[in-house]
Structure formats: C-alpha cells, structure tokens
C-alpha cells in the first residue's frame, strides 16, 4: 500500500527532523488475562505514577509526537487511565488504544467517544469462544470482549480486531474473518509470536511453521483488511510490516528509532516494543536527552539495509519482512539474519513461483554445515590411513 501524499510528506518531515511522530506507550504490564503466548511479565515492579505519565506526555507533545498508542498489559486496569487519556487529549494527541476490552462498559464506550479516541484495537483470538478463552485463560472472556466491541460500535468508534496467529487458532482464521464481517470491523493478524522480554524463547513453540502458514500467505484476504484508519496509522511501527511504501523509509529497515519509539510502564525508552534495547529511563533523563543523545538510538539510526552483512546480498529481500528487533532477540544481532524471517521469505517466494528459494542466510548456513561434514570425512579418512 502506498502512503497518501499527505502521509508521505509527514513521514518525510518527521524523518528529516528526527521527530518522534508515533509513540507506543505501555502504561501497565498488569493484565486481567493470562494469554498463553504473551511476552510480558505481569507483575508490577513500580509502574509510572500519574504525575510521571503526565510529565512524559507533556514532553512527547513538545517533541512533536502526534500519534500516541496506549497499550499494556490491560490499560483499563490503571485506575487513573481516563485521567491520563483526558490529559493526553488536552495535549491534542491522536489516540489509539490497545485493549482486551474486558473492562469496557457501555458507559466507558460513551466516554471514549467523548474524548475523541480515534481507534481501539481489541485482541480476539478466535470466533470460537472455547478457543479464545483457552488462549486468554479467562472463561467468558470471548463473550465479554465481543459485548464491548458492540458497545464501542454503538458509539461509532473505530474498532479493529487484532489476532496473533499461533498453533491454537490457525485453523479458525476463516471463521474469524466471518465474525469480523458480522461485526463490521476490520481485523489484522500477526504471524509472529515473539520471545518474552526477559529473553525466554519457550513460547516460540506456539508459532506456526512457514508450511502451516501457506494458506495465509497465498490468500491476502485472510491477512486482514486495510482501512481508512490505517492511513493515519501507517507511520507508526515497521515500515516493512505495515506494508506502507514511503520514500522516506528507503534504505532503512523500519521506522523504529527514526520517527517512532516505545515507552515501558517503568519509563524505559526503547526504539520499538519489539526491540528491547533500553536507551534511557524517563525517571532519570528527559525524553529529549534520550531521543537525541542516546548511543542506542544513534546505533539503530545508523543501520542501512544495504549494509546488512548477510541480508543485503539476499535475493529474497523483496519477499522478506525482516524485523531488526526480532533479529536482535532471536539472533542476537540487530543487523543479522534470523531463521523465522528466512523461512517466511522462502515460503512467500515459493508461493510467488520462485523455484527452490533459499535465503542468503540459509545458503550460508548450509555451506558451513557441508564444510563441517566434509572436514569430518577427511578426519575419518586420515584415521583409516
């Protein structure tokens, strides 16, 4: 999808001026669901207090942030959430909320409309209640989330269903699409289960293999629908994964650290929620100091696609949605390759008709394996002699 000319210019200006146009702010990690695939630790280790969050929002507005996503954890577990939301709107932020919606009542839906929230993204894992509830580990959560969607729709709010795909819910994706149609809401899927923020990779076992995802890769309609809301959302997040083509993103892996960043409930600033590289803490430093002067942001901004040691030469790049954050988490190197991206790129290339597609990383790995096997044979031969 091409960015609209207005969005393209906005992205361009924010990139040129190093403006943090979009910020993803997790205001809590506490949650009232216990989703099997979640990467967070839900304990509260001292999350930001109300005045601290307001101070950060004031700094973000001064820095030029327009698009603000409040997420968590479950945002409505914060008793001060509506106070924070009201404050954010007084600073003229464009607001997107991410929630499981369990705590959204009819009255709260009215308040969200009154406050001018632009979009609410709600996690729905399946059209089958028992599958959804098994993933969230909260009985009745499917019915409550769906009721909340109806409350929000009644108020004319823009709702989007978000569905991370995993082994537990892949087979029900077509029924989820029908449910989204019935509710008159768009949906998006995410094929990536990410490692936990503490580095634990055990939840990656829930990922579908590239082979299992072939139907999703072949059928674009299964991957969700673009909506008018996406036009304003497109600058936030990965330039690659958003599918938005903007000249301003040419040559860089994604928007992380360039015109977007992530803030944790403890005030840590990261280039992206999927790039857990702490660049500073807002309890000790100003946002301006961290954004403009941290070596971590400088390093992320210096990465260029054509300088990636392995991927730059890969002939599957156009099929690849390599995420530098996942490269860091899964491969230990922001500039490196990692298996998951290669597997999906090879699958997409195969679906597109490329014969025997092989990523540069996999070709290199196989080359090394062959060399090791060959050297092993030489040793055995020498022993025979």
């Amino acid at each position, binding site marked *: 999808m091409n960015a609209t000319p207005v969005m393209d210019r*906005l992205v361009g200006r924010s990139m040129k001026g190093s403006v943090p146009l979009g910020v993803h702010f997790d205001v809590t990690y506490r949650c009232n669901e216990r989703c099997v695939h979640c990467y967070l630790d839900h304990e509260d280790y001292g999350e930001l207090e109300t005045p601290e969050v307001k101070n950060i929002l004031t700094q973000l507005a001064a820095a030029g942030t327009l698009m603000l996503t409040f997420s968590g954890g479950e945002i409505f577990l914060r008793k001060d959430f509506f106070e924070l939301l009201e404050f954010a709107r007084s600073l003229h932020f464009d607001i997107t909320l991410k929630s499981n919606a369990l705590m959204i009542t009819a009255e709260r839906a009215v308040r969200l409309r009154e406050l*001018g929230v632009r979009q609410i993204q709600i996690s729905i894992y399946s059209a089958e209640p028992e599958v959804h509830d098994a993933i969230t580990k909260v009985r009745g959560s499917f019915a409550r989330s769906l009721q909340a969607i109806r409350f929000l729709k009644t108020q004319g709010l823009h709702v989007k269903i978000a569905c991370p795909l995993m082994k537990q819910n892949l087979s029900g994706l077509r029924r989820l699409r029908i449910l989204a149609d019935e509710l008159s809401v768009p949906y998006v899927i995410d094929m990536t289960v990410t490692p936990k923020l503490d580095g634990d990779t055990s939840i990656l076992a829930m990922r579908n293999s590239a082979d299992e995802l072939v139907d999703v890769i072949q059928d674009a309609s299964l991957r969700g629908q673009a909506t008018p809301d996406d036009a*304003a959302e497109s600058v936030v997040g990965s330039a690659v994964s958003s599918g938005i083509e903007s000249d301003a993103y040419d040559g860089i892996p994604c928007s992380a650290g360039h015109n977007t960043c992530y803030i944790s409930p403890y005030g840590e600033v990261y280039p992206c929620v999927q790039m857990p590289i702490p660049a500073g803490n807002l309890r000790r430093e100003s946002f301006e100091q961290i954004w403009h002067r941290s070596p971590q942001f400088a390093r992320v901004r210096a990465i260029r696609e054509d300088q990636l040691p392995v991927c730059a030469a890969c002939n599957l790049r156009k099929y690849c949605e390599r995420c530098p954050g996942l490269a860091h988490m899964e491969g230990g190197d922001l500039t490196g390759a990692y298996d998951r991206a290669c597997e999906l790129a090879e699958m997409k290339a195969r679906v597109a008709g490329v014969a025997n597609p092989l990523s540069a990383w996999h070709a290199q790995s196989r080359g090394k394996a062959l060399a090791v096997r060959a050297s092993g044979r030489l040793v055995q031969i020498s022993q025979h002699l």
Partner: protein
Amino acid sequence: MNRETVVLNPRLAWREIQGRVVVISPEDSVVHELNETASFIWKHAERGRNVSEIADLLTTEFRVDAAQAQADTEGLLAVFSQKGLLAN
C-alpha cells in the same frame, strides 16, 4: 464575524511538525496538512485570537496588505469550517 473568536474543533488531534500543522480527525481518520499560512492562522486561533487579530498578525508576518490578509484569513477559516476543523 471579525470580532468573533475562532474556536477549533476540540475533537481533533493536531501537532505542528517542522513548521506545518497536521490535523487528524478521529471520526474518519482523515489527515489534513496545513500550508504555511493556514498553519499560522491555526496556531493563532488556538491561542484564542479573533478574525481581525489574526488578519493583523498575518499582515505583519507575511507583509501583505490588510485587505489581502483579511480575505486570506476569512477564506481559510471558511475552508476550515467546511472541513469540520472548527467548533463554531
């Protein structure tokens, strides 16, 4: 109208980014990018100026005559109104 304070639509999200005001409407997600003159008018409207005051400031800032400034201000405010960017 000249003494009337201009009131921006409070439901809108907006920010000045690199000298241009960008406005997003939550109802339809439409993104409006204001040019230099419109951004100037927007920022002064936000500060509670009325039409005449904004036109006067425009005269000084852009070195245009008073009639031109008045016409430009009224014209742009009419466009703002048409696009739902004003409360009044």
